[in-house]
C-alpha cells in the first residue's frame, strides 16, 4: 500500500514505499524573481532524482504587482497539469503581502508559511491574520540579509534557503548546484552565501 505524504512534519523521516509529493506556492511581486526561485528549487530537486514542475501563475508579469509561482516535487512522474489549489507550504518573498488572504488560501491544515519578516515574532500571527497553532510559521529577515550580501533587496534566493530550513525537501548542496548553473560565477557565489545565511537565521515562531 502506497501512502501519499502531503504533510511536512513527517518528511525528514520518509522511508520505504511512502511517496513524496509536495506542492509549494511562492508569493512575491513582479520583478522579485518569484518564478526564478521556483525554478531553482525544481532544478535542485531534479538533481536528487525527483520529478519536478515549476510554473508561474499564468499571466503577463507586471513589475510590482502581486505574482505567484508554483513548484511540485514528487518521487513519481507528475501527471497533474493544473494550478496548485492546496499547497503544503507557501513562501512569501515580500512582507508587504502578508496581510492578504491570498497567503493562506487553500493552505493545508498545519501547512507551513515561510516569510520574509523581521519584526517581533509573536506579532506575525496578527499580521498574517491567523491563529496561533493553525499553521507552522517560519520567519527570516530576508530583506536585511539580501541588502547585506547582494547590496540589493532581492529576496528570492534568501527565501529559498529559509524554506529549506523549514522543510528539508532538498539538500542545500543541490540548491547551490542549481544556483551555479543559473547565475554567473560572482553572482552565484553571493547568492549561495545568502542562502546559507538565510538558512541559519530562519526561526520557527513558537
Amino acid at each position, binding site marked *: 500500500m502506497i501512502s501519499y505524504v502531503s504533510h511536512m512534519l513527517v518528511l525528514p523521516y520518509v522511508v520505504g514505499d511512502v511517496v513524496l509529493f509536495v506542492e509549494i506556492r511562492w508569493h512575491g511581486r513582479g520583478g522579485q524573481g518569484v518564478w526564478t526561485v521556483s*525554478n531553482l528549487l*525544481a*532544478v535542485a530537486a*531534479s538533481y536528487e532524482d525527483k*520529478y*519536478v*514542475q*515549476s*510554473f*508561474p501563475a*499564468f499571466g*503577463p508579469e507586471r513589475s510590482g504587482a502581486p505574482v505567484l509561482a508554483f513548484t511540485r516535487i514528487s518521487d513519481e512522474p*507528475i*501527471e*497533474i*497539469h*493544473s*494550478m496548485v*489549489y492546496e499547497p503544503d507550504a507557501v513562501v512569501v518573498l515580500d512582507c508587504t503581502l502578508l496581510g492578504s488572504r491570498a497567503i493562506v488560501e487553500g493552505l493545508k491544515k498545519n501547512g507551513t508559511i515561510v516569510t520574509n519578516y523581521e519584526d517581533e515574532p509573536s506579532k506575525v500571527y496578527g499580521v498574517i491574520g491567523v491563529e496561533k497553532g493553525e499553521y507552522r510559521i517560519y520567519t527570516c529577515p530576508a530583506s536585511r540579509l539580501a541588502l547585506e550580501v547582494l547590496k540589493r533587496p532581492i529576496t528570492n534566493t534568501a527565501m529559498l534557503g529559509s524554506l529549506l530550513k523549514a522543510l528539508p525537501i532538498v539538500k542545500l548542496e543541490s540548491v547551490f548546484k542549481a544556483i551555479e548553473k543559473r547565475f554567473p560565477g560572482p553572482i552565484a557565489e553571493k547568492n549561495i552565501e545568502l542562502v546559507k545565511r538565510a538558512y541559519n537565521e530562519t526561526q520557527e515562531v513558537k
Partner: protein
Amino acid sequence: MAQTIPHVPPEKQLLLNVNGDEAVAYAVKQSLVDVVSAYPITPQTIIVEKFSEFVANGEVHTEFVAVESEHSAMSVCVGAAAAGARAFTATSSQGLALMWEILYIASALRLPIVLAVVNRALSAPINIHCDHNDAYGMRDSGWIQLFVENVQEAYDTTIQAFKIAEDENVLLPVAVNLDGFFLSHTLENIRILPDNVVHEFLGGHRKLAKTRVDYLDGEVPFALNPACPLSIGPLDLYDYYFEHKMHQVEAMKHVLQVVRKVNSEWYELTGRKYGDGVLEPYEVEDADVVVTVLGSTAGTVRSVVKKLRREGKKVGMVKIRMFRPFPHKDIAELLKGVKAVGVMDRGISFGSYGQSYLEIATALYSSKEKPLLVNYIYGLGGRDASPELIENFFKELIGIAEKGYVEEEIRFIGVRG
C-alpha cells in the same frame, strides 16, 4: 510479460530541466532540420527564440529565415520542403490562423513539414492562454495533428513527427500541439537522447521520395531541382483535381499504422511510449464511465481516475494523442461496453458541439452497444481544469450511467452563469 530493455537506458539519457517550448526547440536542434522559418513577434513562442540562439551559436547547420508574417513563414517552409529540405516552424492562435491558406498547400503538395502549435485561444477578446480552437481551425487542412500531455512528450513527439511526416507511405505535414502555458511555460525535468541517436532514429537528413517523369522515362527525386525539372501544384481542374485529393485520402489511411510503428520504435529506443501512439487508454477495460481528453489535461484526468479508483469507482480515461487522422474504429472498440462517456473539449464549433465530440459520436454511430455520450466544454481562454472540476463531472457521469439517460448532451463546465 518481458520487459523491453531500451537501447538507450534512462541513465544514458541526459537530464534536462526545460519548459515545453525549450523542449521542442531542443528536439528540432537534434533533428537535422535544414530550414526554420518564423515570424518572430507575438503570438510567437519561445520555441523559435530558443532555436535562433542555437543558430547564432553555430550549434546547428539550419538556415533560419525570419519573415514578416506567419503566412510567409509557412510559405518559406513550403518552398524549402519542395526543394527537398527538412523544414520546421512554430506558431500559436492568430498566427496559425494567418497560416491557414498555406496549410492546405503544404499538405496537398505532400510536403513533410513539421509545425509546433502552442495552443492558445483566438481573439477576440485578446487572450494569450490555452485552448484548442486554434488547432481545431486547421482540422480540415489535411495535416496530421498530434497532441501532447507533458514536456517529455513534447520533446519525444517533435522528433517522432519528422519520422512520421517523411515516411514514404505518408508524406504529409505534421502539427505537434502543446498546451499554451500549461506546457509551454512549465518547467519539467525530461530525459533527452544523445544527438547521434536522434540522427540515427531519423535516418540522417531527409530522404526524398522518387517520382516518375515522362520526359526522362524514369524516376527522379520528388523535389524542385533545375537539373531535373518538375512542376509541383500546377493548374488541375475537374479533370484531375479529385484524383489528387484521393491521394491525400489514401495517405491519411497509412498514418495510423506509421504512428503506431514510430511509437513502438521509440519505446524500444528510449523506454517511453504513449499508448499505441494514437490513443492512450487508462483503466478502461472494466470501466462503467470513461472520459476522453486531449493535451495536458489528460494527466490531471488520469490523476482523478486514480483517486476515484482508490474509492472503488469503476472509471477510466482515454487520451486522444492523434486528432487527425481520427482513429474512429479504435476508439469505438475501446468504448465498447462502457455505460457513459464524457468527451472533454477545450474548444467549440459555435452552433454545434466540441470538435472531438463530433468525431466520437461519429465513431460510435455504428456501434451496437452505444454508450451514453456527454460533451464537456471546458477551459476556454486558459481557464484552469482543476482536479475538483474533473472529479465533479466524473460523479455526474456515474449518475448518468446509473439513470440510463442524458439530459443535456453538451455541458459547459467551470463557467459563470
